[in-house]
């Protein structure tokens, strides 16, 4: 999202314009979902925590100090909530209630891929997931992870190699 537009939307959210926040949701939901998916390895948990993140973003937007930093800020909230969730993971209250109304990416290839992704170190997994979910943009990832674009490229290459090794090992096994 362009900086000026983002600043304008954030400013409007601050004064209670919820419609402006819906635009921010549309712009950042994929990124937030990607972070949650990378950290939680489960699309349903990811969806729930991503929802919490985006709602928390709305309630806390008055605390955002720099209007142009919404992306980095909401990403931090997502990561913190995921960390909380992992620590407190209590599956007892969640008998899955999933209707087959969505395209379920559960073919064998995706299963293999998800298993391999789960084995990647967290920074590699985050980088790779963000890259494919959030517009294949190193700039976005740099903003999200608060690192340089060069570091993003380095991590991306490393993650590709690690993923390849893991997939080969799985298929070999």
């Amino acid at each position: 999202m362009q900086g000026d537009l983002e600043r304008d939307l954030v400013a409007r959210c601050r004064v209670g314009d919820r419609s402006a926040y819906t635009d921010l949701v549309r712009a950042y939901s994929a990124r937030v979902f990607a972070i949650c998916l990378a950290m939680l390895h489960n699309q349903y948990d990811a969806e729930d925590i991503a929802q919490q993140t985006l709602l928390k973003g709305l309630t806390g937007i008055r605390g955002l100090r720099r209007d142009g930093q919404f992306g980095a800020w909401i990403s931090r909230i997502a990561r913190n909530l995921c960390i909380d969730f992992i620590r407190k993971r209590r599956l007892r209250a969640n008998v899955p209630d999933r209707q087959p109304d969505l395209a379920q990416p559960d073919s064998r290839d995706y299963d293999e891929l998800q298993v391999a992704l789960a084995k990647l170190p967290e920074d590699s997994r985050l980088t790779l997931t963000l890259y494919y979910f959030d517009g294949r943009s190193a700039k976005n990832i740099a903003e999200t992870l608060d690192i340089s674009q060069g570091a993003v490229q380095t991590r991306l290459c490393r993650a590709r190699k690690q993923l390849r090794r893991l997939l080969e090992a799985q298929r070999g096994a």
Partner: protein
Amino acid sequence: MQDDCKNIQEQIAELVSGVLPAERAAELRAHIGTCAACRAYLEALQADDKLLGKFAEAMQPMVARLENRVIEEIGDLRSGDSGGRASVLVTILKSRAAKFAAAAVIVVAVALMMRRGNGRLDMAAPAFAKMVEAMGKVAWVHEVENKRTRDKGRYEEWVFYDYSYKAKLVFKRSDKGDFSCQDYLNCMETFYDRQADTVVIGYRPEYHDPWWRPTPQSLVEKWKKSFEKGRTVVTHQVGPYEGIDADTYCSTDYGTTKQGSRYVASEFILIVDRNRHLPLATSFKFWMSDGTLDTDTDTKYSYPEKGPNDIYELGCPKTAKVLDNSPTPELLQAVAGYRAGRENSPRRYIAILVTGSYKESPESYLINSVEVHYCDDYLQRCDLCFFQPITEQEFIEKAGSSFDSIMKWWISPAKAELRISHEKVSLYGEEYTCWLHRSGGSKDWVTLYKGYSPGKSRMGPRTLGRYVVYRNILSEFGWTDGLLKTAGSWKVSLVEDDYSRSNNLLCIAVLDKSSFAGDGGVSQGSFFYLNPQRNYICQKYELYPRSNRYYFREVLEYGQTDSGQWYPRKILARENRQDVTPPERQEIETIYLDADPEFPEGIFDPEKLPK
């Protein structure tokens, strides 16, 4: 493989990422052209790239659903999506639509001028209270919605409100052949599955007074939002609507978002019976920035004396198969006592949760967090401290092993000896929600959210998420909302197995009927073992989720308060993931409880949070 190839393959990932300098990329490509091993590696990386792309694409429906959920939650502009038509305004609407299509930019400019100096909610506000009151007095509300854009179609809904102004029965029908009935009082749901030509009957315990149970207020609240937006212009006219003396309120929002965004204008019309104060019709429209009409929905309301008795009366095929997943009376009776015990559990207490885990053997058990929960019904507070793991013995040496000793240690400076990595205070009340935390390196308190929401508004703590808020530990632990849920393909039944027999327990199996397809194994389901001697605690709970990626089990030991209330004294939870090494992880939570406490002064006061 040659050493050269090893070096080259190291760089092929950079080639795939497109970050290699052009000269080096050309050299690499020249080599790949002649080397089968490197070519195979490049192709494999490209295949991974494609697979990752497809995976992200396959997840898009979830992202879209997430967006919709969030937008619905925050009262998206489209949430007032319902319509009806004021004949008096049809001409005006049409001409506006034409204007938008012709010159959206000009309209925005005109709108920016118009929004100055116009009243907004004030003009329409008095109508809302009267409408809620009037709708609470009618028996049935019948709603016919016509959508003319996107998911076009006609949808009908009959709602029966009970004396408490909450929906008791909701019947739905669409022109596509969908039929359903939600019975909130009996927690039952019936729907017609068109594909399978089957009527499915299920039990939904979450229908027990859910926050989303429709009320006249919730309907009116949805409309009200359309009059409250920042740039709204509201007009009010009096005149006949289909022969009835009516008030017509029109809310026009030209500045929905600025250029570059999707919507530029919206219009909402509400027509209300002037004498009975009952809504007669609504109309809702959204225009895109290119001038096209994105949403165009009309809804008409009527108030019949009688509604349908079942979905067959609405036209559901009587020849359809019936799949009755509802629990048997025996099962409901068996569970009734537990449910009552859960609902009647103390709502005033202080509970300390000490949590730790081990990966391989109980000898390696380490404690890493303490939480203190203060609960005075809706006033709740959780103070959490997450620290570098210590052994159980070390913890007992510092804090002891009773409620009083741990509480004393908790408020003493001795707690600071722990290497605290994360602290958090969560505070919930009927009118406020706050979170404060600090972590690791920075020792500054950070206010994540400290807001006040009026009453139990949609943004109140109840709806901020399923996991965190309003944790009433005594009613939550050792139980689950999922028990007995049978809607859709879930089937719940009383079963017997070795564990239940040998321990004299009731075993309730909650299984997805699709689990029985294929190899006959259970791939998705939960098993609850209930102890008939206890009032609401499960003895053991096991979960086998989809694909067997992980397995979860928890076992409880009990404690009993002075007033005889059972509670989960110790919870051993085991999570076994096949895709993670090491495969097992065990978590233990020990709960120390004071069920009739004196709360420290100001504990629920948001103004007295740690600075």
